């Protein structure tokens, strides 16, 4: 099985977030970028599958600050190749990025009978969770998101998936390869990198850079305005014994004409 993992860098929300002077983006001076958490899981799942069934893992990501570190880490964890798509990708949302990835796949002739494309289910920066479905559509492949388990059956060239629904429900799906999957959580938590591997990788492997023509790539939604949540004083905390709180509630409701 040959696995392609789509990765994306997102702002580290542990750091303070400040809105930029254009009121449309975050202030870069205050940002640190990390690999999107669910992409970490997609990468982990890819490496687990490679360890179980053989094949290769290729990681690819649109250029972003601190991306090289994330790609070298992917190689140190067990990816075979890592690609960086050169360009300014800030303004592109899911449909645009899906187009970029589909062109990347075409240009590099990656699609094959046993290709599995993995990505995280949803990144914390836009919470769109749409890239998997756009890409599946562009490539004419089956797609499935919020997946927590992937098993491969080499005889039928099918994968069996567990997909999570709200309320703790789970559904089992079977898809034939090639397919595009959004990973919510890998079977195991993402592994730590053996530190000796880092040095080896830096010596022996390179991040491959590639350009993708941008004509005709839609950027999807554009952000008109970013703003901090407004502080209002509409919330009121009622204190006292349950009886007192209930009495105050009734008062408020009747004041507002609700009862």
């Amino acid at each position, binding site marked *: 099985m040959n696995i392609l993992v789509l990765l994306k860098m997102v702002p580290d929300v542990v750091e303070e977030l400040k809105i930029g002077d254009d009121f449309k983006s975050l202030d870069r001076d205050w940002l640190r970028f990390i690999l999107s958490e669910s992409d970490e899981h997609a990468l982990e799942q890819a490496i687990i599958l490679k360890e179980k069934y053989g094949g290769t893992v290729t990681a690819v990501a649109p250029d972003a600050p601190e991306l090289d570190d994330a790609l*070298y*880490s992917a190689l140190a964890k067990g990816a075979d190749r890592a690609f960086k798509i050169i360009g300014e990708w800030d303004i592109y949302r899911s449909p645009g990025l899906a187009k970029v990835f589909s062109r990347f796949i075409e240009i590099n002739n990656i699609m094959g009978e046993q290709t599995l494309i993995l990505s995280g289910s949803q990144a914390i920066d836009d919470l769109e969770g749409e890239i998997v479905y756009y890409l599946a559509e562009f490539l004419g492949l089956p797609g499935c998101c919020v997946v927590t388990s992937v098993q491969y059956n080499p005889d039928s060239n099918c994968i069996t998936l567990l997909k999570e629904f709200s309320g703790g429900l789970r559904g089992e799906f079977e898809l034939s390869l090639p397919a595009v999957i959004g990973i919510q959580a890998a079977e195991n938590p993402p592994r730590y990198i053996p530190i000796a591997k880092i040095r080896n990788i*830096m010596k022996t492997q390179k991040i491959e850079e590639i350009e993708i023509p941008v004509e005709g790539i839609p950027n999807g939604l554009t952000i008109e305005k970013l703003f901090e949540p407004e502080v209002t004083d509409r919330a009121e905390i009622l204190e006292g014994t349950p009886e007192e709180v209930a009495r105050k509630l009734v008062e408020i409701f009747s004041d507002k004409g609700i009862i």
Partner: protein
Amino acid sequence: MHPNRNLTEEHVILRQSVRKFAEEVVKPAAKLLDEKEEFSVEITKQMAELGLLAAFVPEEYNGSCLDYVSYIIAVEELARVDGSHAATVAAHNSLGVGPIYYFGSEEQKKKYLPKLAGGMLWGFGLTEPEAGSDAGNTMTTAVEDGNDWIINGAKIFITNASTDISLGSTVLTVTGKKPDGKKEMTCFLVENGTPGFEARAMKHKLMWRASNTSELFFSDCRVPKENILGKRGDGFHQMLGTLDNGRLSIAAMGLGLAQGAFELALNYAKQRKTFGKPIAQYQATSFKLSDCDMGIELARNYLYEVCRMLDAGEKITKEGAIAKLYCSELAHMCANHCVQILGGYGLMKEYDAERFYRDQKLLEIGEGTSEIQRLVISRMIGCYE
């Protein structure tokens, strides 16, 4: 402030990886292990899997083959969340693995280093009840008997020597007199379980409570002459050389602890309000935090620079002493400010401030007290000539 100034991509990725492990594995466990005064075999095994237990040893002995800067960054990142686990790694590498790797015979390296890379620990027995700062006063003796040597005496405060995964210790002994009348000292590699050798854990520590500290007892402990580290009579120099390098890892622990305490204090100060505004906006607080930041910047730059000197093969007796002294006193200041800024909460176990405050103190005592570092520096600048 950027901890990665002037570092290579490799160093940056290494810092991220160790930080992630430290925050996700060590940090959540640290408080309870400290409280129960318990050494974690489990976490030590995980640190071995990451390659942290034979950091600068070449791959042929299963080591991670890191440069010294990388090793120091790894210790710094562990110390940023917990002193005990940083201590296990720092003592094992610098004091346990170091002497065998630098002074051991090929057979000794082949025999021990792969095991020490893989999760077994090794102690460094220099200090005795009557010989701490004054290591020349070592009283443990080894007497030749045919092909063996017989060791008698005791060591105290030996890190990593009596855990369930401790393989043995390097022990400094007196083996005779030199022609100039001084003691002839020789190091032996002594495995745990050797008859006549007992390693016993010391309890009730103020700090590093999840790190193992041991007393070693030798009574007619017989070891073959193949267990001499390097050559007979080289012991004292081996120990001094080991301490020169080891000081950098104590410095890294100071830097990491300072960083952890500073971050905690800064975050707290921005959130805690008194008299209607965050305490970070009172100069009494903000100046403390600026002093911490300034010290950390200077300490980090200097420490990495000394590591580069060591990587380049230069002698670092004075520079190592300066780095150790500066970083451990910086840790003292930052931990103290951190507790002060957290007020009453700083004294409660709920926050890491009190653990930083306790753990910091060892750094001014272990591997040569601050007074001894000043002695080393004053000798090096010629005060006593």
